[in-house]
């Protein structure tokens, strides 16, 4: 079937819109995930989202509610992000160590809960996502998330950049770095919750980290980094979806491989410039 014909189907159009909405959102968050050394944190949140889904199933089973799993993942991811922030300020351990034990602990809990619930088949969807199952409600959630992230960055980009570079200087300028860190962590958690369906727990971290990582290699100023990351975040999902549909390959991995290719190209550009 011709590629254009494929996009006449609702599921393909929904997947494309999801990619175009979530790609830049993940990329712009990824700029600061990279600059603040939070790549492991975002990856850990994505993996731990499995537990949010499992806990949601348990709550639904006990209460008879039939809430959208995204709501449970959103609540669980936000609590986990806040919890990790709280612990990093109060425990004599590095942020990485806290992320490591929180993430492995919650994934272990999630797998046990899924096992107890007998929902083993659900694991594959959670791990790798299913972008073609996105419906209008998912797209609405993604659009709301995109609007919130856009508003945050339009108003807080300057203080967030200063707080990332030099927290003490930021405090002297009236910025509250700790509060900004919590708000930023919550936005990453919300993005993980909303994006889980698209790429799954294993690959979602790539959508956040890789566009900014590639742009960072090739840029020497902030404007170049931000513009490059957003552009890559915008282009990679449609290219990945088109490649997946044309070659009959899984979509999530195709999108991630587009990002890997972009990163390789940026590294080549960097090497050429350096020489």
């Amino acid at each position: 079937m011709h590629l254009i014909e494929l996009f006449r189907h609702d599921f393909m159009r929904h997947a494309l819109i999801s990619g175009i909405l979530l790609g830049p959102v993940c990329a712009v968050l990824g700029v600061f995930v990279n600059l603040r050394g939070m790549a492991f944190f975002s990856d850990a949140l994505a993996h731990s989202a499995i537990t949010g889904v499992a806990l949601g199933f348990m709550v639904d089973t006990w209460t008879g509610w039939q809430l959208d799993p995204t709501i449970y993942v959103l609540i669980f991811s936000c609590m986990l992000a806040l919890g990790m922030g709280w612990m990093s300020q109060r425990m004599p351990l590095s942020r990485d160590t806290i992320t490591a034990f929180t993430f492995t602990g919650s994934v272990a809990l999630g797998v046990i809960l899924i096992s107890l619930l007998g929902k083993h088949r659900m694991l594959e969807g959670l791990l790798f996502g299913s972008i073609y199952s996105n419906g209008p409600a998912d797209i609405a959630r993604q659009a709301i998330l995109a609007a919130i992230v856009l508003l945050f960055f339009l108003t807080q980009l300057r203080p967030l950049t200063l707080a990332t570079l030099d927290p003490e200087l930021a405090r002297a300028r009236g910025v509250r770095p700790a509060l900004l860190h919590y708000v930023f962590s919550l936005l990453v958690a919300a993005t993980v919750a909303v994006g889980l369906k698209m790429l799954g727990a294993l690959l979602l971290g790539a959508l956040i980290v890789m566009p900014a990582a590639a742009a960072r290699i090739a840029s020497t100023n902030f404007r170049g980094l931000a513009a490059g990351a957003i552009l890559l975040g915008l282009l990679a999902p449609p290219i990945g979806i088109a490649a997946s549909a044309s070659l009959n390959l899984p979509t999530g991995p195709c999108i991630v491989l587009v990002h890997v290719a972009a990163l390789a190209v940026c590294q080549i550009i960097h090497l050429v410039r350096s020489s």
Partner: protein
Amino acid sequence: MIALSPLLETRELTLHHGTREVLAGFSCTIDRGELLGISGPNGCGKTTLLKALVGIHQQTSGTIRRQPPARNPGYVPQHAPIDRNFPLTASEFLAINCQSRIPWIGGIPRKLRHGICGKLDCLGISHLATRPLGTLSGGELQRVRIAAALLEDPALLLLDEPSSHLDPAATASLKQLLLHLHQEHPLTLVVVSHDEPFIDGLATRRISLAAPSLAVA
């Protein structure tokens, strides 16, 4: 010459760093137009005192009275190692230090360009405007940080260990810059340093803090 009158006063100031008391019963007056040097050994509370004067460290007891011009001071914190790959140019660094409400999405917003370029020019570092921070030498980076602290034209500029991590040539150049700023601008400067030779010949008055908490004015 600017007439001497108090710009900032501290009375019976006691400061803690964590649970450790680093300064007790410290009183001093900083007059308009002076260049005050605060020296002392490591751990005597110099940095904590400067942060309290800036307003980002809460005193345990005592008072700090700031005259209106000293309520929004310029501040150059102690050298913190920056990520050499942080993709920010010198002019972008100044842009993120502006307290303007103009949205910033990288680069220099048109409305801020005049102020930022003027400040870089004033400090003789216009040629560094498009250089990434990570490629600047210690002395160049320190000048950029001072330019950022002067963006809002503060009446009071506080610098914490400005000569640390600088080689002798850069230290001498920085000393000349601070003297120039003090002479050519209506600026009161407070410089904290454990580098006694740096303070000598720079400060018009000096306070030596003794470890851990005895102050000799």
